[in-house]
Structures are given as structure tokens and as C-alpha cells.
């Protein structure tokens, strides 16, 4: 990893997210990600549903019968308080990234910016990274079975014959050109903040203090802790409820955390196979 570049990432502050989805569009426009289906879900204003090969930013909408803030003055005015949580989800660019560890081809790699990127010229679509991600971020862009399967596409977008795995690159190409990632640049309220990770973490801690002082209901940081199961996120969040409410795992752990032990038990199992088979030869031919 290039020593000169600082590790960069996102701090997504949901307390100022207006759910406009500019991040989703700016991402797709820049990265030429195809439109992937006109499906109305009825899940509040979310018709994107989840991150995947064709969705690298996803804004979650959760309507709740709960006050946004617990401070007396305004909260008590409304007999039936209501809040509308909005959160722009994205690849976490984990410190210990499951997808990166398990990729057999080296298509996934850690860039000089400390981000995790799939190299589209290397990926052979083995699909191992898909179940290896604790957040369900990566997915395979499937080859269209019949022409009408083909998602509509921009002229700029090449044939979307595919079969490779895709995810947020944190705009690797823009970073190389000294530009901010598309989603962060577009975000009207700077709910999505891009920058050097250390600096973002300080900012997030201050922000949390402020919100807690203002008695925001359920304010917490998610993925900021470097001792968590994935060694902290490169893209972390300020949430206003339990992670799972936003479709996020409460306590994600990188699969390879158990790998040493796993290899050991695999070695033992191999030995056992050998021993077992050898045993089968005792007692000769009868």
C-alpha cells in the first residue's frame, strides 16, 4: 500500500440526510452503472431496496412512530410523534475485508488510498466474495438471459454482457485524478462526507456528542470502532436506531477472522481422512 497517501473514506451522517437519492444517481451516472428495474416496492420511498452489482449507493427509508428528539419542548407538542429515518448505505471498505481476503484472483485489492476495489479487467466471476461480505454489498452482474432482461443503459455504458462482480470503488478513478467521489460531491446536505479517515472519525465523535447533548433519539456511531469484527469501516455511519433497522448487521465479523483455526481443523480433518482410509486397510483383504 502506497505509504504516501492517507487512508480515505466516508462518514455518512444520517441525521442530516434528506433522502434525496442524489448519491444513488451521481454514483450511477459517474460509474455508468445501468438502471436495474422499475419496481415499485411500497417500502416507504425506497424503490432501490438493497446494494448490489447495479446499486453502489442505496438510501434506506424507515418511517417510525417515535420522536426524532427527546428534548421536551418540541417533542411533546405532537401527541403522535413521527420520524422518517433516511440513510445512504454504501460499501464499508473494511479494514479487514472479507471480499478482499477470499478473492482467489486478486481482482479485489487494496488501493493506495486504503480502499477496496474490484478490478473489472481481472475478475472472473467466481462469486466467492459475494457470500464472504458480512454486509451483502457485492453481487454478480448477471448476463442477460433474453434481450428484454437487458437493463436500460446510457449510451456511454458498454455492453452490459457481464458475469463479473461489482461494487463501490469509492470512485478510484476520481481519487486518482484528485476529485471527490461522485456521491459525496453531490450530497446536498453533506450527509455523505469524504475525507481522511482519522479526521472523519474526530468529526464523527464531535457530531455524536452534539446530538446526544440535543437528546437525539437513538444516535450512535456504527463502524467507527477500530476493534470491531472488521477492524472498523473505511465508510462508517451515524445512525439513529439499531443497525438492523437499516438492514445492517448488528455485529459484523470478517469471515477470515477464524481462518487460522479453520485451517488447523481442516488440516486435522485431512489427517483424519488419511488415518481413516489407512485404517480401512487394516485387516487386509477380508
Amino acid at each position, binding site marked *: 500500500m502506497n505509504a504516501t497517501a492517507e487512508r480515505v473514506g466516508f462518514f455518512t451522517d444520517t441525521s442530516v440526510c*434528506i433522502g434525496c437519492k442524489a448519491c444513488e444517481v451521481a454514483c450511477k451516472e459517474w460509474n455508468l452503472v445501468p438502471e436495474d*428495474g*422499475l419496481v415499485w416496492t411500497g417500502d*416507504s420511498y425506497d424503490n432501490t431496496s438493497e446494494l448490489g452489482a447495479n446499486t453502489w449507493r442505496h438510501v434506506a427509508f424507515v418511517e417510525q412512530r417515535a420522536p426524532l428528539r427527546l428534548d421536551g419542548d418540541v417533542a411533546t*407538542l405532537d401527541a403522535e410523534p413521527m420520524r422518517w429515518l433516511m440513510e445512504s448505505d454504501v460499501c464499508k471498505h473494511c479494514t479487514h475485508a472479507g471480499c478482499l481476503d477470499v478473492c482467489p484472483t486478486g481482482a479485489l485489492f487494496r488501493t493506495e488510498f486504503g480502499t477496496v476495489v474490484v478490478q473489472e479487467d481481472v475478475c472472473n466471476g467466481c462469486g466467492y466474495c459475494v457470500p464472504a461480505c458480512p454486509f451483502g454489498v457485492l453481487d454478480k452482474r448477471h448476463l442477460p438471459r433474453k434481450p428484454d432482461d437487458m437493463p436500460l443503459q446510457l449510451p456511454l455504458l458498454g455492453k452490459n454482457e457481464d458475469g463479473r462482480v461489482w461494487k463501490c470503488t469509492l470512485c478510484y478513478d476520481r481519487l486518482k485524478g484528485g476529485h471527490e467521489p461522485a456521491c459525496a460531491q453531490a450530497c446536498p446536505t453533506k450527509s455523505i462526507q469524504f475525507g481522511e479517515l482519522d479526521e472523519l472519525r474526530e468529526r464523527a465523535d464531535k457530531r455524536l456528542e452534539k446530538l446526544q447533548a440535543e437528546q437525539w433519539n437513538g444516535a450512535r456511531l456504527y463502524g467507527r470502532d477500530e476493534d470491531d469484527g472488521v477492524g472498523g469501516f473505511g465508510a462508517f455511519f451515524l445512525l439513529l436506531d439499531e443497525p438492523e433497522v437499516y438492514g445492517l448487521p448488528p455485529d459484523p465479523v470478517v469471515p477470515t477472522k477464524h481462518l487460522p483455526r479453520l485451517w488447523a481443523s481442516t488440516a486435522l480433518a485431512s489427517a483424519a481422512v488419511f488415518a481413516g482410509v489407512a485404517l480401512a486397510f487394516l485387516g487386509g483383504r477380508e
Partner: protein
Amino acid sequence: MGSNMAENHPVGFQWVMEARERGAKVIHVDPRFTRTSAMATQWTGIRAGSDIAFLGGIVHYILEHDRWFHDYVVNYTNAPVIVRDDFRDTEDLDGFFSGWNRDEQAYDPETWQYEGMDMHAAAGGREKGFTAKSGHAAGEGGGGSALPHGEPPDEDPTLEHPRCVFQILKRHFARYTPEFVAKACGCSVEEFVAVADALCDSSGRERTSAIVYSVGWTQHTVGVQYIRTAAIVQLLLGNMGRPGGGILALRGHASIQGSTDIPTLYDILPGYLTMPHVGAYDDLAHYVDANTSRAGWWGNFGSYAVSLLKAYWGEHATKDNDFCFDYLPRIDQDNSIYKCVFDMFDGSVKGFFVVGENPAVGSSHAKLHRLAMAKLDWLVVRDLVDIESSSFWLDGPEIETGELETKQIATEVFFLPAASHVEKDGSFTNTQRLLQWHFKAVDPKDDCRSELWFYFHLGRLIRQKLADAKDERDRPILELTWDYPVAGDIEEPSADAVLAEINGWNAKHEPLSSYKELENDGSTACGCWIYCGVRAEGVNQAARKKPRWEQEHHTALEWAWAWPANRRIIYNRASADPDGKPWSERKRYVWWDEAEEKWTGIDVPDFDEEKRPDYVPPDDAKGPAAIAGNHPFIMQADGRGWLYAPHGLVDGPLPAHFEPDESPFRNPLYGQRANPARQQFDRPENPTNPAGSPAYPFVVTTYRLTEHHTAGGMSRSVPHLAELQPAMFVEVHPELAELRQLEHGGWATIVTTRAAIEARVLVTDRMKPRMVDGRRIHQVGLPYHWGSKGLTTGDAANDLSGLALDPNVHIQEVKAFTCDVRPGRRPRGADLPAFVERVRREAEGGDE
């Protein structure tokens, strides 16, 4: 209020969020809990169509508790002015002001005037059968034009006089108590008081607050009066012309402000000059005299008008021929699009240009527009994509229902592909009156062309074809100045050259730098006086793009150009006290510099630079000179902010609460239910849901979503937007879902007496029912983006709404009308009109 800023102006909303983070209270008063409400420090839900009751309540609260900003109100508003003794208020006449003419169904504003003012010349248009009902009373020019000079004849600085505006205001709003507001709007007394208190607390020398509105206010039969009420609040609290104050109209189209300043509107000429009325004026002098106010900047009406005529007809416009004043067509009726569409329906309108608009989806009573277009001889549609308005004859809803048959439609249709904003140079005037230039990035492809190209070359062709015409009728078009430089293979006219004409020039053809240089002797030409200066020194000021980090002040005066004279806040002399000192250091903006003997500040002062704060106009003063040094509202003849509007409105000098044209309720205040002056079209094609009819028991309101744009032509055709909101839906409360057996995620049919549409059902608490007058009233929410074409299609909400208009500006009421909701999808084909008819029959028996 009346705005969903976070959803419809998200990038502008960044400043609101920043203010919230710095401790500002963000209050959202709206029928729906929207993305804006979700960000607000307080959301207060009210019944759609009850905003005047709420705002009037605030006025009452301010006056009742003496929370008004004394120094501001006494000096800068017309509070002390005394009104004629024959004026009668709605409180006296049960919902009518004095001057109501039952036969004409219109007001004669005579009795609303200041004491001592006579009306005879106030509005030339008032003469010879031209009535207030037929449009603008007198353009913008007429305001108080009968005042002998800047000072109104009679006033009482103590505000004690029973007929002074202040006392009239007190009496008028006396019944708008918090209890009344709660009853009429369906909110709680506590919620209302919290809002009123917050506004009062943030008033005075040190603090201000701003009010934001959008079409949530304008699209009512009392839309203008909504905004008037807000103006009264802001004047009483001293929030006009001051930083962090004012009333912000957030407009929905890139250049909708520009298309009003340089109007593609029937009743005004560029710069808000009155369109001449039939038989109203003997000659130019008469026109000018009738529209010139003796005081204020409308005092120079003549210079503006003559300079425009010079811009139009150049050397052909001379003193001897009245500068071709006769060439201007005359109006004598409402020619707004809604009146026009009925004429189209009746066959008297035969040719129609539709450019960058989609009436078949975007206009109220969209079905009527489609039926009307089927009666045309010819139709020209210019857009980026083939929209509902261009192919109504092929796959419109009426083709499916059999109400129209393609073969029977005689309309000849031309669809011409347009150029997008990246394919042409030009300027938008955005919502903050800012002219911003956009540069061309690429050439338009194939037949795609700009509107500039289309109209220039259309005019060129017509002039060619008429070149030998001897008909007197053709002289205006043949003598029109119509020679703009063109460039490229496609011969695109130069937008900069057109802007130069708009800016204007003097006799030596040198560019003008300010409207103050305009003359009425024909020595100057100017296409739009308020834009004069946009090309000062021959430099395109609108194209200035000095980065914000290089700007001297946060006002960023060197980014683009704001009319008038690059002022970012108009009437900003009000940001200083009567002596010309800033009201407070925190809020310093524009002030009188005694040493320099001039006005200065971080914005361009909206005042004569050298006029001392203590200047008192001599009795013979005219025009701007007739405005006193402590009167900031220099476009008004008396230099005051009008708490009471003696002139300019056709439905009353003060706002009063009226029910929407279609409403489940009687008026809680007056026997008169709805605005008596509202514009109605009593025609079979425009039926109305009977008021209070049990067949249409719910209040429906239409709106936009962040992910789409108006009628969808610019968003339903874009893959990355279409997928974000891929279906027409209806928002209902769980109680209503229970009541009407609506399944979340299923389908519902929404029906009015005009049409029935279907939509997916979104059951959400965000559509809270309201307790109004002891009744629980449900509200139904409908986005209006969908139509029958595009990547995502759906029924058009505007099919449901009818045509009842605000009488001042002819804007339709689509923010509050009534409907019924039924479970399941709507009938198909011929069964659909039959179904609507059946429901209408059921409705008979509704009571007025």
C-alpha cells in the same frame, strides 16, 4: 409553509440545514409529513386549504400580544394611513368587502382607497368595460398612482385613528384566535402557539425570520391572498428587506422567474409593463400617463415603455408615430391558458405552439387540454422527447376509452426535437432573480434545435413570405427589428446579441448600464428595463463566474447578475433603521455612510445612493424623488410596505379565510363559503364536486417528488430517475385504508366528478387525518408526475382536478380539492367514463 423545500429544492435546502445546525428553528406547516417535515425542528400538520386561517392567526397573535416591531411598522409600512370612510370589511359584510358587484361577480376597488385618493386615473384599464375580473387591474404600474406625491394624504402616527390601516387590521383579524386556528386548520392550540411564539421571539432589531413558500400557496383560489397574509406577518415583525428575513418564493422551473420578467404571458410586456387594453388608451401619452405613478420608480413608466418600443421597432419607432404604440395588439379579456383551452375546445383557437411544456399531464384538468388539442387545425410541439401532448392522438387515454378516435382527429401535428441546456448558450433567471448564463458544451444533433433558433428562423421565414404584402396588418412584423447574427452550419442566432438588446443601448448604440439611463424621447432602446445593466460596459454580467472563495462578501455580488441593478435583497434600505444605521451590528447589511454621504453595505443599496435618510420630498416632487428618505419600498407610490393593499388586487385589500372551491366544509367565519371573486368556468366540460358532497368526502392535494420533475418529460425519460420512483402512487392514512379497504402495495382508484385514475397504495401515518370543526377529515396525497409515455407510466393526477382559479393570476386550485377513493384498479375502456358518470349521479344531493 406551502413548500416542500427539502424534496423539491434539495440543494437550496442545504442552507436551511446549516441554519438548523447553528441553532435556527426550522418549522414546517404542511398538510403532509414530508421529507422537509422530517428535517424540521417542528412539523405542524394542517388541513390543506386552511393556510390563511393559520397565518391570520399569527397576525392576530402578534397584534394581540403587542409583539410587532414598532419602529419598523410605524416608519416603513402603511399602518398609520387612513382609509376612506365608505370602506367596509368582510367582518362587516359576512365575507364580502365593499364594492362587490353581484352582476359582474367582481369588486370595484373604489372604496378600498386611502382617504383623499380618487381612482379615476388609477388604472386606465378600468375604463370602457375593462373590469378587474379580466386580469391585472393595471399591470404593476398602477400602484397608488393617484397619490399627489410620495406622502399619502392622511395618516396617524399614533395608530389610534379608527380608520387607520393598523386599526382596520386589528378588527379584521380579531376572530383569528388560537382556538379558531385549531378548529379551522385541525392542529392543536399548543402547536399553533409554538409557531407564533417562535416567529415573534425571532423579531426586532437583533433577529429576523424568513418564510418560504412554493406552489403549495399559489395553487389556490385565494393563492395571492395566502402570500399577502405572509407579507403582513413579515412587515409587522420587521422582516422585509433585511438579511435572514423576507418571503422566499421557491419556483419549480429553471427560468420561471425569467419567463415572468420577460413574459411569455398574455397580460404584460417585458418588465411588467401593462399590455394595452382595447379602447383604453387614445395614444401612447394616455397609456403612459395612466400607468405612471407620480412617486416611486413607476414614475418613469414612460421611459421603460418607449425604450421597449424602440427595441422592438428600431428606426421605425419615432416620436411622430408614437413609437409604434399602435403596433401593440390589445387585450380585453382573460387570455390565460385556462380560458384559452376552452376557446380551443370551442374551435376558435386553431393553431398552438407547445414548447417545453406538457399540458396533457401538467395542466389542471389535463383531460380537457387533450380534448381541446384534438380540435386544433395544427399543433407544434417542441421537446426533447415525444411527450403526452405531442401524441395524445395516437396513444392518449381518450383513445383507450373511445372518447377520441385517431382517424377522426383532424389536428396536424409537428413534433420538433429541441436542444438541451448543454447544447445552447443562454441565461436562466432563477428563483432569487439571479440571471445565470449557461455555456454551450456541444452542438445539438440532427434536427435538434434551440427555441432561439426556432423562433428566429420562423420569424425570418414569415417576414420573407410576407415581404411583398401590402396589408397594414403586416407592418409590425415587417418593420420589426429581426436581424441577429447567426453562427455555424445550422445558423444558430447569437444569444448574447439578444441579451444585448434586452439590456439596451443609447443613441450612439453604446450599451446601457442602468435603468436610470432610460429616456422617454426615443434616444434609448431596451428590451426589458429591469434587466438593464445585465450587459453593462458591454460585458455579459450574467456570465460572471468568479468562484465563491474569491468573492468579497457572502452576498457574492460578482457571481452572475440579479435584477434590478444586481441587488441580491430588494428593498434592502429596510435593513437599516429610519436614521440609516443598521438595526443591529449582527444584522448590518446596507446603511447610510455619513462621511461618504451615500448608502453603502455588502449589497447594492436598493435606494437612491445619495438620498439622505432624513430627506423629505417637496410637494412638487415626482417619481423617485417623491419618495422620502425613510421609505424603503421604492416601487410603491408611498414608499411603504403595504399591510393593507388599497390597490392592485381584485379580490380584496386584506386576506380573509375562504374555503377552497371544492371543500367538505362550510366557512367557519362567514356565510360566504369560498372566495366570491374566484374565477370559475361554468361549463359542462368543467363540472365541480358539490361542496360538502358525501360522494367526494376526502380532501386531495397534489405534489412533486424529489425524483421527478413536474409533468415528467424531463425525468420519466431518464433511466436513473425513472427507477427511483417507478410508479404512480397514492398516499393514505391507515384509518382511511381501513375505511375504504385499501391494501398497502395494492391498487386504488381515485375519483372526482371529472375523472378517475388508478394508483398504487402507500399506507402511511404521514397522511394524518385532521379534526376540523369536530369532524375527522382524511387527506389524500397524489404526486402528479405520471402520464402515458416515458420509461415509467401511470395515470395523471391532473385529470382529477378542475378549473377554479385565483382571480388575480389565473392559477388553478390543485392543492386542495375533493375526491373519493375506491379499492382496486379503475375500469378500462368505455367503462371508465361510465364509472365516473355513475359516481357523479350518486353525488347529486350534496349540499352547498
